[in-house]
């Protein structure tokens, strides 16, 4: 059974729907990528999954219906969302940002251990732990955002455009670590990306979203070899 199963999802802002009946799944321990151009509805899709906007349809997480649940309750089930714009608490220190990620966890020893573990993934954050998050570079802030999500000990990680606005080398770095996290911790990932090449390298399954509908889906190999996808999103 898939960890996240979304069926016929419609969602949007105010009166207008952005998603029109989207169906997709994230396998247990898998990485699923959602590709699409600007305005295709990728961010909306993630927001709908974590209950940040009005939605219809069925969303099941680990067999449990979550389409009517509040955002904070979905997070408490183990869904960590790194939102559009990273959602960093700019006036808190880097370490406080990480601690707030572990807010729902009560075991202090485990949280302290996880903090150290996150620092082994991202040693840069350890150096800057007492610095105000707003003063970190874009790459460091993205590392911080991913780490904050990990501090929740999530079963599913929702990542909204982790490559956005970062230098290619930094992106390589972060994607490499994401692969390691997925392999070592068994965290499933739902990744939304404009950079299709990167996303397909990381994921095992992919869906292509166009104006709120899935127009193509399959394993990454299948999607990559599709003529139309290659022309539109990979550019060769």
């Amino acid at each position, binding site marked *: 059974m898939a960890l996240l199963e979304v069926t016929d999802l419609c969602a949007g802002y105010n009166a207008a729907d952005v998603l029109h009946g989207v169906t997709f799944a994230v396998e247990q321990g898998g990485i699923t990528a959602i590709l699409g151009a600007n305005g295709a509805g990728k961010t909306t899709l993630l927001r709908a999954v974590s209950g940040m906007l009005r939605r219809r349809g069925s969303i099941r997480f680990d067999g449990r219906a979550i389409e009517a649940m*509040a955002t904070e309750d979905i997070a408490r089930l183990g869904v960590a969302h790194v*939102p559009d714009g990273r959602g*960093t*608490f*700019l006036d*808190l220190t880097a370490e406080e940002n990480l*601690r707030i990620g572990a*807010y729902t966890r009560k075991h202090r020893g485990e949280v302290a251990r996880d903090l150290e573990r996150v620092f082994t993934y991202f040693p840069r954050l350890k150096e800057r732990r007492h610095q105000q998050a707003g003063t970190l570079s874009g790459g460091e802030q993205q590392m911080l955002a991913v780490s904050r999500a990990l501090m929740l000990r999530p079963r599913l990680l929702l990542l909204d455009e982790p490559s956005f606005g970062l230098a290619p080398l930094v992106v390589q770095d972060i994607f490499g670590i994401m692969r390691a996290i997925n392999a070592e911790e068994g965290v499933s990932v739902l990744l939304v990306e404009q950079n299709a090449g990167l996303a397909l390298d990381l994921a095992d399954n992919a869906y292509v979203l166009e104006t709120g509908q899935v127009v193509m889906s399959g394993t990454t190999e299948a999607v990559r070899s599709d003529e139309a996808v290659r022309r539109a999103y990979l550019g060769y």
Partner: protein
Amino acid sequence: MEAFLHQVFSGLATGGIYASLALALVMIYQSTNHINFAQGEMAMFSTYLAWSMINAGLPYWWAFLLTVLISFVAGVVIERIIIRPVEHAPVLSVVTVFIALLVIFNSVAGWIFTYTIKTFPSPFPEQPLFGNRYISSHELGSIGITLMVLVALYLFFRFTPLGLAMRAVAQNPLSSRLVGIRVGWMLALGWGLAAAVGAVAGMLVAPVVYLEPNMMAGVLLYAFAAALVGGIDSPFGAVLGGFMVGVLENLIGAYVIGTELKLTVALVLIIGVLLFKPSGMFGKVFVSRV
């Protein structure tokens, strides 16, 4: 010189009260961008509560403690029941609700306790402590209690997970939801803390201004000035602003314009800050791109 020092010290004592109330305003402003105009009246009502308990024979400090606790709970309840439904309403509607709260507390207090001025006891002795000539025991005690409240709040916000969560909510409510924080309850908790701090301020100022339903009108104005001088979104600024306004009020009242016109100091400060430096000393400057 002696008179001057006396003015400064008593300014610090009332300044501490302004600082507490300003801090209560800032706590709510930070997380919701609203100024609770009823903060002063809530404090006044709390003080009446304490007065009733003391009159019923309860020892001062028990009444004090109970009042703080009850005010905290009342603050939480008010947020949940009255403020929550207008959470997403336009600013003017929210302001109307705050004004309504102000009027309700004021008139209910007048109705239950009448508008007759009452004396409110000070827990500190009549004679100055340590035989000093500059500061009365009540003033010294006020400063002490204010500092204790401020330190306790600082420790709470700085070192506890709950305090951290409340700071996070004030900064970024959406992101806070995503890590599982129940934002609505954090706002209610903020109201509770603000009401509790306000209650302390009310009980400390009542022996000086006497207990009556309008006793907080002036105090709230000074607190408002203090919060603005410090920067309306800066807790540290509010505290510093409170002490500054307290001292300034006394010195200008004593040496420049006379005590009758003291309240104008607050008004001049408010208008001055809004005109020349709306962000205050430590507030954030908001720049929007158009």
